[in-house]
């Protein structure tokens, strides 16, 4: 063997631990898929609430990405603003705000989500609350007057981009009626499906949200487990316990298609960082989200229950992962039972 050739080779070869191949997926790639999945809902929001829907998203995204970059720079930490996770947070935050939200309020929400909820705990992967939801709840409790003015779909036009109509009469959201124990007046299920209802940007167009969810499942970004168990739990509970003497099926369908349920179940509860990793843990987490949502919708003081439900379950993720470790290989339940029977 040629010694010099071998020496040259030694310097050139890269060694490493197996496996030597990896899947092509990457964190920014996954984030990009989530952004793509949100585009149909965003398009519906622009259609119904006018261009202000788009500018509001741009403001929150600029806020989240900007504050992420600023924080990492000030703290002299590796720059992570390019991993697109802040973009997802920004988009999701805007999706759960009404189109009328003043820009400065939206920007504060973005700053809170990124700095307080995400970066103070160590950045991506370390936060225990969903940043967008926590940002939204923060705004709800700090600036309730500014973000509870819902515009009627189709009533907002170009001027609204510059001027948020804070003096406008707030339109009734279907969730408000449901919370009061009656079906929304003059609002058909078809209208709810396409999104012709008053509400937050990303909470109105049910079909578009489902389309985004199907895209995420097909791309294997999320497993359908969490959305299905979440929505399924809400469906079962609302079917079993209708309020106000309404027909069961109607009550259930209106509950499923109103408010933040679909956005929450498809995009918020499935957030990797703040959901369990084990299959059973995920099921329990999703059922917990669903049960809490119905409970808070029925007995809470706010009409909106999804954000609080998911945030509460976020806190339990650590415990759920611990409690629902996968069953150990080689110890099937029947073997265990056989052993116990022998004893």
């Amino acid at each position, binding site marked *: 063997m040629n010694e010099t050739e071998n020496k040259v*080779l030694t310097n050139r070869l890269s060694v*490493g631990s197996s496996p030597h191949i990896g899947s092509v997926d990457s964190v920014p790639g996954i984030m990009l898929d989530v952004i793509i999945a949100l585009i149909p809902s965003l398009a519906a929001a622009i259609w119904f609430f006018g261009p202000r829907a788009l500018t509001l998203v741009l403001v929150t995204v600029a806020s989240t990405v900007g504050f992420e970059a600023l924080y990492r720079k000030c703290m002299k930490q590796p720059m992570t603003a390019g991993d697109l996770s802040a973009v997802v947070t920004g988009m999701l935050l805007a999706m759960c705000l009404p189109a009328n939200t003043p820009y400065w309020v939206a920007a504060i929400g973005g700053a809170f989500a990124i700095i307080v909820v995400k970066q103070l705990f160590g950045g991506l992967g370390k936060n225990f609350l969903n940043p967008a939801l926590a940002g939204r709840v923060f705004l709800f409790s700090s600036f309730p007057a500014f973000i509870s003015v819902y515009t009627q779909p189709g009533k907002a036009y170009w001027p609204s981009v510059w001027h948020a109509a804070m003096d406008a009469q707030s339109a009734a959201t279907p969730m408000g009626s449901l919370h009061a124990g009656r079906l929304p007046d003059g609002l058909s299920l078809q209208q709810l499906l396409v999104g012709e209802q008053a509400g937050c940007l990303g909470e109105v167009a049910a079909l578009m949200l489902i389309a985004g969810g199907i895209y995420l499942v097909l791309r294997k970004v999320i497993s359908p487990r969490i959305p299905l168990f979440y929505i399924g739990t809400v469906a079962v509970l609302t079917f079993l316990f209708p309020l106000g003497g309404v027909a069961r099926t109607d009550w259930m369908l209106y509950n499923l298609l109103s408010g933040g349920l679909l956005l929450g179940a498809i995009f918020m509860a499935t957030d990797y960082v703040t959901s369990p990793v*084990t299959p059973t843990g995920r099921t329990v987490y999703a059922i917990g989200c669903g049960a809490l949502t119905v409970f808070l919708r029925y007995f809470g003081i706010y009409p909106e229950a999804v954000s609080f439900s998911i945030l509460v379950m976020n806190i339990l993720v650590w415990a759920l992962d611990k409690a629902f470790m996968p069953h150990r290989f080689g*110890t099937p339940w029947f073997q265990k039972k056989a052993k116990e029977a022998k004893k």
Partner: protein
Amino acid sequence: MVHRFFGGVHPAGHKEATEGVAITPLTLPVPQVVLPMSQHVGAPCKPTVQVGDEVKVGQVVGEPTGLGAPIHASVSGKVVAVALRPHTSGSPVLSVVIENDGLNTPADPIPVPAPVEQLTTEQVIELVRAAGITGMGGAGFPTHVKLSSGLGKVDTIILNGAECEPYITADHRLMLERPEKVVQGGRILMRALGLSKLIIGVEANKMDAVEALKAKAPADVEVRALRVRYPQGSEKQLIQNITGRQVPPGGLPAHVGCAVFNVATAAAVYDACYEGKPVTHRVVTVTGKGVNTPVNVEVPLGIPLQTLVDAAGGLKGTPGRILSGGPMMGVAQFDLTPAVIKGTNALLVLRGREFTPTPKGTLTCIHCGRCVSACPMKLTPLFFNQRFTAGRYEELEGLRILDCIECGSCAYSCPAHIPLVQSIRAGKMEVRRLQAEAKAQAEAARAEAEEKKEVSAK
């Protein structure tokens, strides 16, 4: 009944370069061979020859000192050194170096005491031991030990023709070209274990091999096409797939009544029992974008990896990473000096985008859970990595880190490209260290207690 193993991944096969290439014997000159005394699971062998000895092909040059199998000369000639030489595992190993005289003078074959059909279990085990047969799939567990430890416990014998690692086609070609040897070798093992049925599991991406085996299979042999999914060829996963049984933690296949042998091992058993031939050669797939003409080549054991590359037409371009074995579990090589051993089923010369370079910088786990879904052993690799990097080694055992088979499915599926298997290997070492410490402490405490007892008794 259809069984499936848990998790798994589906990396691109890349087998097209060599799956249609017939096995050819090595035609290049072999000036010398290096036979490492460590070619199997267990204790290294003790050389039985000295510098200056003349050896013949098939002559024993190393005898096991504990768990192991003898090692035979693969060429005839003169022993020129018994010294440390590079090994594919990375650290140098005591090796017997033989200068080839080019004559291939055969040693006396291993005596076969009876016609193959009438061999007793003990005779088969002795033949398998004398022929130095170890698991040819890569792990290299001595086959005669598997046989003798499985006696009376095993009710199912499985031949492993899954070859689930990408790129490798050595077993595929062997099943296609020598189905008779695989089937009959498997039946010898079957009879030795006192069983009447043999199952051969082959991944469904090798249907031609399935047909070839079926054509040679008597009524007591069942050839089963398996789902194409990595790690189908892992012993525990293959057993689960074929029988639905799960090998208990820390247990052996025999604990669930199974014995699994590689198809190449079966072919070696055939050679030993029909022809009295020990293991001196094996089929190796040499492939990857870094070689000119990928081949399946049958080579004498002990040739340097460089000769394999030459057999494949030499290096093409700048090699990026050279592996002994497949891309999922193979061992990266520093250079091409180590020798081919019994478990070397492939040499991959990868370049460019064919392999994923070790990532640099801080890698952030986003808790996506893909490693959990990919794990065929139902483990939670992200938590191993988390605890290991935090230095909380004492929590690793409770997370069942020792159950890990290091198949690499977790690291393969990780979108953050965290080297999970590396953390797991290092974590296992820490766990074993902690276990040893705890044991030593317990023993010390017991000794102290006994001393006290003695004192108080006096």
